[in-house]
């Protein structure tokens, strides 16, 4: 009887186009949108690009030390720090207003730096940090100039030692962080898969509703069949997980191979995480489906909004949300299945398989067990009066 129910539930689920849409098509559509929306965002806003600057010389003034320092940063660094346009002040000012350069170095008796007001750009923090880098370079030059002037005044022989000390070098060494993908936009894809996993809850809800005589005709039919409810629910639950997992594997493969999203880990571990997410999703849906005599539409609404809310808290719409929650209410992150799923992907990406990854999987299976047990408690030994 178990296998009979198992096979028939698979057939039923595969015919439910609306349920399949959420796990099969929705992640593909949203993933494609994410891909186009986030495709170049880090390259535009975060990755360092050569900063365009204008240099104006008042009445042909020259400042050798400054010019040499600027040239060194333009020619000896990769990528070059600055892209210098030498022009007159009027043109440079116009270029600054039109955002074609980020600042103007004006060489006269002394060197000055002119920037546009950042408040006018507000959200464009890339511009702000580019101007800050210009300010840093300017500070470097002015501080060195001050130091050299002071020291030579104290001891003229210092001029002999100076050149080597004025070179711009790095006194630090970066630690190797990981072989994984440090592009933080990949977290949107983690959360997208987490959302798709939670959307498997629709299948779980229908399993619950199709086992209750007061909620569906199929439930009434099943209640008078000789098959034990525990066997029927177990078979449907198993087939629900299998079907949803297979369906969800398609968008995962699409993200990895068609869109080329770098998850930093191979498919088998991705699938294992998705499987744990599916189990939790179906169990959550089963739990909601078992709640009293609530209309199907309302249950679907509860599932959609609670899934989206969990994913919002996990960072689907606002990348840093998970850390905000961690600061103010860390317990929410512990019990939020979307966070557990996305954290599993993050762990695999950055650290590989470790205790934290297995901890996440354990938390997901534990949540699934709690939802399943609570659901079963609600529908067990239910009898219906003959009316």
């Amino acid at each position, binding site marked *: 009887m178990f296998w009979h129910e198992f096979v028939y539930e698979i057939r039923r689920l595969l015919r439910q186009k609306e*349920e399949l849409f*959420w796990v099969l098509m929705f992640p593909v559509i*949203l993933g494609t*949108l994410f891909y*186009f*929306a986030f*495709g170049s*965002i880090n390259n535009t806003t975060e*990755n*360092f690009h050569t900063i365009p600057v204008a240099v104006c010389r008042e009445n042909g003034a020259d400042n050798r030390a400054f010019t040499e320092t600027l040239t060194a940063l333009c020619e000896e660094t990769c990528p070059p720090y600055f892209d210098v346009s030498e022009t007159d002040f009027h043109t440079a*000012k116009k270029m600054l207003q039109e955002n074609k350069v980020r600042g103007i170095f004006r060489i006269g008796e002394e060197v*000055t*730096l*002119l*920037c*546009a*007001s950042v*408040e*006018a750009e*507000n959200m*464009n*923090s890339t*511009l702000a*940090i580019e101007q800050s880098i*210009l*300010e840093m370079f300017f*500070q470097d030059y*002015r*501080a*060195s100039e*001050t*130091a050299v002037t002071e020291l030579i005044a104290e*001891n003229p022989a210092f001029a002999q030692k*100076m050149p080597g*000390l*004025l070179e711009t*070098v790095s*006194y*630090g060494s*970066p*630690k190797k*962080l990981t072989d994984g993908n*440090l592009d933080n936009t990949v*977290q949107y894809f983690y959360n997208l898969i987490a959302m798709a996993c939670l959307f498997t809850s*629709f299948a779980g809800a229908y399993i619950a509703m199709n086992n209750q005589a007061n909620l569906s005709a199929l439930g009434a039919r099943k209640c008078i069949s000789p098959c034990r409810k525990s066997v029927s629910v177990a078979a449907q639950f198993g087939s629900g997980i299998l079907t949803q997992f297979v369906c969800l594997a398609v968008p995962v493969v699409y993200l990895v191979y068609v869109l080329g999203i770098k998850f930093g880990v191979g498919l088998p571990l991705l699938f294992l995480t998705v499987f744990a997410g599916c189990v939790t999703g179906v169990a959550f849906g089963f739990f909601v489906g078992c709640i009293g005599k609530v209309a*199907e*539409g*309302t249950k*679907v*609404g509860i599932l*959609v*909004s609670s899934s989206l*809310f969990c994913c*919002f808290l996990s960072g689907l*719409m*606002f*990348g*840093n949300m998970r850390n*905000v929650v961690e600061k103010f209410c860390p317990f929410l992150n512990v019990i939020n299945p979307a966070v557990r799923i996305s954290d599993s992907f993050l762990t695999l990406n*950055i650290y590989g398989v470790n205790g934290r990854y297995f901890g996440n999987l354990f938390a997901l299976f534990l949540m699934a067990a709690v939802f399943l047990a609570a659901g079963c408690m609600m529908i067990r030994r239910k009898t219906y009066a003959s009316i």
Partner: protein
Amino acid sequence: MQVFKAFFKTARRSLPINIMYFIIFSGIALFLSRSSVDTDSQAFASVALDVAVIDADRSDASAALTGYLAGIHNLTKLEYDREALLDRLFYRDIDFVLILPKGFEEKLSGGETDLYETMQIPGVYSSVFVEGQINTYLKAVRLYLAGGKSLADAQSHTEKALNAAAGQVRVLAQQEDGASGMKGIYYYYQFLPYVILSMILSGITPILTTFWEEGLAKRISCSSLGLSAKNLQLALGSIVYCFGIWALFQLIARIFYGNVLFRETGLLCMANSIMILPAAAAIALIISCFHPSSSMVSMCNNVITLGMCFLCGVFIPQQQLGSNVCAVSKFLPFYWYIRNNDLVSGFGGTPFAGGAYWENIGVQALFAAALFALALSVSKYRRGK
């Protein structure tokens, strides 16, 4: 006004779910609007990044360096925990980690060049900026040390020299006063299309679908009520519903942001937000023509709202979207809504121009008209079937 009354009787059925949507969505919109204000309030002269320092040396030299950085950035002193630091770097919760190893002071005094370690996202602006500042500081200290100063003197001279150089950057134009208090409102209106479209699609579509149901449609058409009167009452019901939702969100904005909302720029944002309504109502009408089930409504709602919001710059600023994405999103009404919001707030970097604002309003009106025309054609086609 039988149909008009029936419209709201039907609306009552989906009231609980709409209240739930309202609470969740308005919470999200408010949160996003408030949190974004915190993250984007940097000014160029003092871009303060989040820097973590692990000071294993605990010497005067390391304290002076961290003190200098603390004057510029948001500095947090942490213990070395690779996993926790890496997590925070990945989420950009911190931008840079400076590790001052034991013996930092001796190495600095001894003229060595390998002085510190870092944890940083390679090749990004924040890493270049903070590392550059540290190197600038150390370079000046080394100059003073080479000039015969003691370490303490070298560090104090360096700080003086750097502080003297700081703030000498001249600014071309100053921003007008009064706009900073409006930032929260701009962000609120930035995220409003997502909330309003979601609520209209999940609210009106099921009601209109009920009226398209074959049995009910036939029952109404054989009554004494004419088709145009029925459609007029449905339209009136939809208008009242849409304006009700819009008014609710204006009320929330008034409660949270006070009278600032009624300044000129606030009123421009409000006027712009009205233009969400006709487009959203037309989309709801188109969907309802296909007699969708409740889950189908949820599907369409999510795909359309999330899709449009991601592509048009509701969740991500338009300036950060790729040019190809913008080329596509120009064919969506929210693109023009966000353009107007950027124009009023100055987020887009272009000064406000009344002509451009009304032009964008006009484009939104044309989109609404086009969508309504499409909705009427689809409805006629479906009825013909």
